[in-house]
């Protein structure tokens, strides 16, 4: 029976992928992509994941998990696998898989789609499942601790620094995405501002009025933010209020930075925790709605399979398809960040080792599917429209007539009239140069939802999508700033002990300010950059995230070799090798390329030359010194990431070589075997039979 299902899946996948391959010169239907994706995931889950779990990881359901051994009813709680799946998915899936595929769509729909599928099934899902099992075997230790125990102190330090830097870059680029969605859009700005008091109201409800009634508080909050979307539409038509919420990017960046700082120093129950509940429910609901709508509507993909931008002169970001598609799409294919969630929080919920395949591999499959849906939403737009929304003014010109002329000359016809009509339908004054991916994703989602559930409400759907992305992003911004603060305090504690105390208020204030200043700086430079800033920050974030994945895969490979499974090491070694190649190639080009659209140092040199020659317009000349400094700083950061990546890989190689030559290595840190006595769990608490006694 299983074999028949497998053969059917393989046939389905082959037919769908064949369909994609054969319809190269005419538009294909999104349903082919969805079918191909579902079949690839099903095959990966059914065969590869099962094989890796059984043979490589030796998953042993008879072995008691930390959740069973330390069950305290609080953080160590044996949890039904579908509930742990929900927790884990909600934790790993952020805005990353929405932004990356949208940017990578400049190469056409095919490269990004293939990388999302192959990268997830052979790389990202394997990484998440492996780290989840290894951490479960080690009492739920964090990635940094495992790196220290299994490789040495350098690995642990690299994981800490890597995480801190990723966090700062991620928040900066996400802040930029929100700013670009809000600039000169009174509707979006009013709606997003309104989500702050809504979150606080939910927070007060949960803390003071009815503690812990999360479902009802979230339902109230979701209803209020939906109301905020409609209220934003009313503000947009109001002559005076409209002006109040019409902000340009620089003050908006100031707002985001101020918001981030206040959120970081306020108690979590007031803003961070309630916003996170809202974001989780919106995320699950919107993802489900989008999947249903795509299947019901099954739109045509209008973007070609491959565009001429594979040669490196794309308007969203410079760089050839290799290696940049693999850097641009990190979340959704392989995301190193997941290793932090898969070690630490989730292992304490695992009831049985048999569940790691569903929770580790399965959650990442679902995130990868979210990335596929983002790719569909980006590529169903007219390519001309897609490029008009996503190209910075510095690339295509700031006047609409100039922008459409440039974009049409690339072979993607678009008119000013078409863009005006679209902006009007979406309830905006303009959609030109809204870089960062969120607005074009919102246009795509609005078209899908509008066509499926009622065309008259396009502008409401558009602003619903913007609100959804913003709530998501601001929630990541809050949580990220807080995590960054803890890590910084951990580091600073080595210099001056009281700074390491996480509840000492001066230290909280000081370290929060440092973290916010860190990402605030990159956000500010991104805002003043005429090319939109995302083109520089996103690849940098991608490189950093892939570096963290390489650290996680190095830890996994090291443990496999140390535990005598060197013959299976390729399972983690091959994704590691691929990531090392693409990250190094991308970093090399970002630093050394002579093309100012790609090379950071070349861009700094070119800008300096223009500045010295006095050929820059006044405004650009004023911003130039900061941009030049920032490009050099980014080049240094890229170099540091690459150096750390290779040092960790060499460290892993050293440990593996010692083991293979029979020399002593550090003792395995796996917790000793203890037989599981846990009975199967019920899904809901009322009927719970949890516990072994």
């Amino acid at each position, binding site marked *: 029976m299983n074999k028949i299902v497998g053969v059917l899946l393989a046939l389905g996948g082959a037919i769908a992928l064949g369909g994609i391959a054969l319809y190269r010169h005419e538009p294909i239907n999104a349903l082919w992509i969805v079918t191909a994706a579902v079949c690839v995931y099903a095959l990966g889950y059914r065969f590869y994941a099962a094989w890796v779990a059984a043979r490589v990881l030796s998953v042993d359901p008879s072995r008691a998990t930390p959740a069973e051994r330390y069950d305290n009813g609080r953080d160590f709680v044996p949890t039904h696998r579908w509930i742990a799946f*929900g927790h884990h998915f909600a*934790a790993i899936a952020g805005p990353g898989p929405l932004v990356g595929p949208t940017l990578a769509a400049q190469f056409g729909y095919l490269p990004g789609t293939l990388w999302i599928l192959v990268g997830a099934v052979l790389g990202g899902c394997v990484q998440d499942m492996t780290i989840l099992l290894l951490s479960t075997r080690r009492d739920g230790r964090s990635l940094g601790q495992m790196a220290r125990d299994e490789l040495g102190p350098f690995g642990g330090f690299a994981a800490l620094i890597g995480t801190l830097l990723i966090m700062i870059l991620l928040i900066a680029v996400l802040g930029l995405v929100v700013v670009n969605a809000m600039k000169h859009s009174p509707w979006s700005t009013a709606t997003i501002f309104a989500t702050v008091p809504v979150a606080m109201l939910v927070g007060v409800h*949960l803390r003071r009025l009815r503690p812990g009634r999360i479902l009802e508080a979230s339902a109230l909050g979701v209803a209020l933010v939906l109301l905020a979307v409609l209220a934003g539409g009313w503000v947009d038509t109001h002559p005076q209020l409209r002006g109040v919420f019409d902000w340009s990017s620089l003050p908006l960046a100031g707002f985001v930075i101020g918001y981030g700082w206040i959120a970081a120093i306020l108690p979590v129950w007031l803003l961070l925790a309630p916003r996170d509940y809202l974001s989780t429910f919106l995320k699950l609901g919107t993802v489900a709605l989008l999947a249903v709508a795509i299947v019901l509507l099954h739109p045509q993909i209008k973007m070609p399979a491959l565009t001429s931008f594979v040669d490196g002169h794309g308007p969203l970001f410079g760089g050839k398809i290799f290696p940049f598609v693999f850097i641009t799409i990190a979340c959704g294919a392989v995301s190193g960040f997941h290793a932090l969630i898969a070690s630490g929080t989730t292992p304490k919920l695992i009831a049985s080792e048999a569940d790691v395949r569903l929770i580790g591999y399965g959650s990442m499959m679902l995130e990868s599917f979210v990335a596929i849906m983002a790719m569909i939403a980006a590529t169903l737009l007219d390519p001309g429209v897609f490029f008009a929304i996503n190209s910075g003014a510095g690339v295509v010109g700031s006047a609409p007539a100039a922008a459409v002329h440039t974009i049409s000359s690339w072979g993607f016809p678009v008119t000013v009239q078409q863009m005006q009509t679209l902006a009007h339908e979406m309830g905006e004054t303009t959609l030109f140069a809204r870089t960062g991916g969120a607005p074009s994703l919102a246009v795509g989602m609005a078209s899908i939802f509008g066509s499926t559930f009622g065309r008259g409400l396009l502008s409401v759907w558009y602003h619903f999508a913007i609100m959804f992305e913003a709530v998501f992003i601001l929630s*990541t911004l809050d949580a990220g700033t807080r995590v960054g603060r803890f890590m910084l305090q951990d580091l600073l504690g080595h210099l001056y002990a009281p700074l390491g105390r996480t509840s000492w208020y001066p230290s909280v204030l000081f370290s929060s300010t440092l973290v916010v200043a860190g990402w605030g700086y990159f956000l500010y430079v991104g805002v003043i950059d005429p090319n939109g800033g995302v083109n520089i920050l996103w690849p940098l974030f991608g490189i950093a995230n892939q570096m963290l994945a390489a650290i996680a895969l190095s830890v996994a490979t090291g443990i496999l070799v140390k535990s005598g499974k060197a013959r299976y090491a390729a399972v983690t070694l091959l994704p590691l090798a691929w990531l090392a190649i693409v990250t190094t190639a991308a970093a090399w080009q970002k630093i050394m390329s002579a093309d100012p659209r790609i090379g950071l140092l070349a861009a700094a040199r070119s800008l300096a030359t223009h500045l010295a020659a006095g050929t820059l317009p006044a405004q650009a000349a004023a911003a130039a010194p900061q941009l030049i400094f920032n490009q050099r700083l980014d080049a240094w950061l890229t170099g540091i990431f690459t150096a750390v990546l290779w040092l960790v890989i060499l460290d892993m190689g050293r440990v593996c070589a010692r083991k293979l030559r029979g020399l002593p290595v550090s003792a395995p840190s796996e917790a000793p075997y203890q037989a599981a006595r846990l009975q199967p769990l019920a899904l809901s608490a009322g009927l719970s039979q949890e516990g072994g006694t």
Partner: protein
Amino acid sequence: MTVRNVRAAIGQTVAATVGWLRAISGDDAYERYLIHHARSHEGPPMSRRAFYEEREKRKWSGVSRCC
């Protein structure tokens, strides 16, 4: 299949969905804690408010959200 069966099946599906939502949001975490506590017999259980305050503090002291 009778009407009663269909109604029962729908009822079960709705109950399972609500149960899943309660569980993944943490809405039923206190009830689960009470069940656990009743088995372990260690003094009086925490109050609902204290339980959620502690839970929130723990949740936001580490990496709990990703990109």
